[in-house]
């Protein structure tokens, strides 16, 4: 089980801030493909990965990052702090 978190418009498109996902996805990209195949709202949220960022166990990461041993993955748009 992996905790999957969504922020900003990703959260709004998917319709929830957090869920637990039972997955055997090897990488973040595989997880995105798995979720996108699940329902239209995921496919919409993940349609343009160039507009997405990912954090793996609370560290900014790449879509190619492996998920073995990972507890938390978060998807969000480019950050706008400051």
């Amino acid at each position, binding site marked *: 089980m992996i905790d999957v978190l969504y922020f900003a418009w990703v959260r709004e498109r998917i319709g929830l801030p957090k869920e637990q996902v039972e997955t055997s996805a090897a990488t973040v990209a595989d997880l995105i493909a798995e979720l996108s195949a699940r329902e239209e709202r995921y496919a919409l949220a993940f349609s343009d990965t160039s507009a997405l960022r990912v954090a793996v166990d609370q*560290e900014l990461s790449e879509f190619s990052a492996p998920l073995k041993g990972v507890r938390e993955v978060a998807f969000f748009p480019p*950050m706008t702090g400051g």
Partner: protein
Amino acid sequence: MTVRVQGEVFDTGAELTGFAANRRDVGAVVSFTGIVRDDSGDLERLEIEHYPAMTASAIEAMVAEATVRWKLEDALVIHRHGPLAVGEVIMMVATAARHRKDAFEAADFLMDYLKSRAPFWKKEVTTSGTSWVDAKDEDEDALARWS
């Protein structure tokens, strides 16, 4: 080094006075204050979302990187989240060093990183609707200066 992520209003003057007080090693303090600005003329408020489990640690990592690159005696970052009215303070950065160049450059570096790498997302609520603020290409360009 101090990092605070909070919803509450804070007093930038009091923070800066406290930050600079009682030091014998510091010859320069630089501070930056970010304020909610109304570009469209109809902004009601800004809503700032963040990633609570990650925000403080991500900023602490930026501050640690700044202390490797410059000779800093101290640094302070306070960043708010939640609803903020026009004119309210969003965040502040202060750096303290023996000499001003280190303080200026470290503060500039921290601001560039906070803009694009701290997990905050701004949403504008106007009289005609709401929209997420898009990240700007020039903010990424600004980061490239430091690599």
